[in-house]
């Protein structure tokens, strides 16, 4: 890369690993941060969080003061609203099998959406556990 090219990556809070009992959370643009240690043992349900196409709700299992497992209690399901879709002529579409490949790329497009609702629900569950 040319040395006058400017490439900046803002500091990103990333999940530090569920099993380690430490989590990082961030707002839509990655600023807020919470780290959870020394939790009370038990099962804690998070709030239902809206993910635009339904709700996400998780339950945290805390063992020996650490986050041991996360169970998804509720997950978006689109079927209930399908009848709102305008009837359109079925377009011509192409199919292929998905396969992981190596590419040299400048930047990556990927989803963050439901995972944000998941993290918000989990954050609430951990707050109840005393994080």
């Amino acid at each position, binding site marked *: 890369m040319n040395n*006058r090219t400017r490439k900046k990556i803002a500091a990103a809070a990333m999940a530090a690993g569920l099993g380690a009992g430490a989590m990082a959370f961030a707002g839509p643009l990655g600023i807020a941060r919470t780290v959870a240690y020394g939790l009370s043992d038990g099962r804690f349900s998070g709030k239902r969080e*809206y993910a635009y196409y339904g*709700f996400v709700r998780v339950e945290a299992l805390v063992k020996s003061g650490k986050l041991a497992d996360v169970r998804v209690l509720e997950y978006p399901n689109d*079927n209930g609203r399908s009848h709102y879709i305008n009837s359109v002529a079925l*377009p011509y579409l*192409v199919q292929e099998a998905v396969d992981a490949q190596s590419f040299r790329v400048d930047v990556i*497009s*990927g989803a963050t959406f439901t995972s944000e609702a998941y993290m918000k629900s989990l954050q609430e569950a951990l707050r109840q556990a005393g994080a």
Partner: protein
Amino acid sequence: MGMPITVVIPDRERMDGPPPGAWFPTADAAADAVFGYFREVDARFSPYLPESETSRIDRGELLPQESSSEMREVLRLSEETRTLTNGYFDVRCGGRFDPSGLVKGWAIARAAKILDRDGFISFCIEAGGDIEARGASDEGAPWRIGIRSPFDPSKLIRSISLHNRGVATSGTYIRGPHIYNPLTGGRPQEIASLTVIGPNVYEADRLATAAFAMGQAGIQFLAGFPDFETYMVEWSGTATFTPGFARYFTS
């Protein structure tokens, strides 16, 4: 969950010729202005910050008509998007207010305007996986953008080449449990991710969000929009795409 923001500005003089005036900022200063703008957007719109306008509107402490002009614009665009998507995109649902689904693409598009104003022709801005790609990369070629695998976030499944377009991906890297709709006895969630290329990142983002909500019908909904191409990945491992999407594949 984090949201890294990437701003790439290739060497302007080499890419786009000398700046038309001495007052143009350096790439460093322009990138700093973009990050400053994203921090302002976060402070105003984050549902995670208790004093943001979003949180105050959600708690009923701030009336939408008394909010900032930026918030009022987001509210107006949210309403327009709700209508455009037959109600699939809605910032008010379940008694909560959260415009995050529109703000990301909107903020990237506004940040691109900052660089436009500063005279930059070639740049790429990415926030949370949504991208505005202008001009050319520092190799003088279209921007090469990887599409992340929903099965393994460390892997890519496709690469696309973009020039003056936006791209957004909606989806999840958490496979949902097999919840069946009790009313219809219907199938579980099958869509893993939905990638939309559009004329800019704002349009791509809002339509990707709404179309993902529609499940398998989303790609058909988007096929009705000229100037948009869609790539849908199902948990089965099959990808379905509009024929025009193949034009963007990096060979």
